[in-house]
């Protein structure tokens, strides 16, 4: 709240600004599917669902296939591995803003898990110099200790790995063939 407003006011000039602090509390009730996914993460397992119509495997799982608009229930559930490949990435210099906790450059990647058909975006890459980040890189999940493996409540856009997976590190395998991720530019 240290800005020109108070100075100007102290001088008795015209009021030009109004400070307003808006804080609204929200309670997100975690949906059954997110709870089930979080329970899987706690056990170190990544769950997905296969669309009964188009057979695509969605991770995190969804209650309906957004392409076919058909429901996907518990019977469509399956486990996928915690390994995959980087299909897209960026290296960020964090912009500083109210509430930002990032300070250092870091890499975020989209990861296509083996056995899944869609990528998981905005994943942190670990244990690798930033200049070596590349598409096709084979990675595996770095799991948090069991006590720290919590899912998240998600929001309008869905839910993710929460605190269960802290990031992804190289497996040391040879890079994936570009053709294998050509359809996963996201």
């Amino acid at each position, binding site marked *: 709240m240290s800005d020109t407003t108070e100075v100007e006011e102290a001088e008795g000039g015209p009021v030009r600004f109004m400070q307003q602090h808006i804080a609204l509390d929200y309670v997100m009730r975690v949906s059954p599917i997110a709870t089930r996914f979080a329970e899987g993460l706690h056990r170190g397992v990544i769950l997905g669902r296969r669309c009964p119509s188009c057979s695509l495997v969605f991770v995190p799982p969804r209650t309906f296939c957004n392409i076919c608009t058909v429901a996907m229930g518990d019977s469509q559930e399956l486990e996928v591995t915690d390994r995959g490949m980087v299909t897209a*990435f*960026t290296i960020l210099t964090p912009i500083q803003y109210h*509430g*930002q*906790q990032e300070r250092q450059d870091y890499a975020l990647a989209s990861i296509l898990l083996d056995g899944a058909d869609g990528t998981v975006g905005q994943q942190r890459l670990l244990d690798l110099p930033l200049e070596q980040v590349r598409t096709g890189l084979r990675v595996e999940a770095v799991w948090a200790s069991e006590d720290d493996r919590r899912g998240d409540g998600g929001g309008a*856009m869905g839910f993710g790995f929460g605190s269960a997976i802290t990031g992804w590190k190289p497996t040391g395998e040879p890079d994936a063939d570009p053709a294998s991720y050509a359809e*996963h530019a*996201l």
Partner: protein
Amino acid sequence: MAERCAVVGVGQTHHTKVRDDVSLAGLLREAAGRALEDAEMTWSDIDAVVIGTAPDTFEGVMMPELYLADALGASGKPMLRVHTAGSVGGSTAIVASNLITGGVRKRVLTVAFEKQSEGDTTWALGGGRSGSVGAGGYFAPHIRGYIDRSKAPEYVGWMVAVKDRKNALLNPYAHLKVPDISLEMVKESPMVWDPVRRLESCPASDGACAMVLTDEAGGDAASKPAAWLHGTAMRSELGQFPGRDPISPKAGQDCAADVYRQAGITDPINDVDMVECYVPFSWYEPMWMENLGFAALGDGWKLTEDGETEIGGKLPVNCSGGVLSSNPIGASGMLRFAEAAMQVRGTAGEHQVPDVRTAVGHAYGGAAQYFAMWVLRTEKP
């Protein structure tokens, strides 16, 4: 289209980082007042108001059209509020035009705005969480994908930045002006979201844009030239699914194909005289050139490299300086649509392209998943 529609008034604010001399209402009224003046109309001539803005969290006012109703002379009139993410300014103009083409209203004022300085857009884009990557962080992988796919030389992105920043010097309303802009400067500017450099990125702006749209009688009666509407299209696609191509999204291709079909455009590069498209990061110029059918897939960057997208080139792109120079997010799409109108009407001043008969306005938003376009001409459809 059932009824013809004409753009007879265009107005915008001076876009800057902080418009700290006006209230929210004052910002919109500045643009709307100029559009009315340009149309030689007053508030009472207007039948309906359509406004658009990006997320309400940017200004911290929920559904601000309620507070802004009487500020825009809408008392006793219909008022609509559109929100389609970054494409909203374009979608808003299209909704306004539908009121005319549908024969529902005769004179419509449409306004789009953003006052980014009131709050914190990076924060708001991140849903209020730490670690928000901002729009640049989201789109950077798509841009990298385009460069990898097209084998475009690195300097093409710098060239777009230089061209748009030079165009901005011709536009009195533009926000970011870098008088001595050069390839070297762009190249030396810091990398923000690899491969996007600072000078290849859009600023955050306060600003508003407004237009007055009328039916055929209104267009005929206007004392200044009218820009006649020949087509509008909106397309949306899912943000993420297996097999999606976010680099040249099908929604963008379909949107262009639809609007060209309406306007009878069969050979876009030759049939269109200028295009104002939504380029928040330099590489989106070649990406959209391909997506909108002005170049074959993989060849968009050659238009830029050959100077064809400059004023005086084969297809001038973003003569106003574009989103790279002014980015009041909610208004950015409408500014594209308005620039197309100004070019057709011959009112673009120093950034006027000579003899524009057909102009295209374009906006996109979300995860490159929302698209809005229109085609304007000097001649009636």
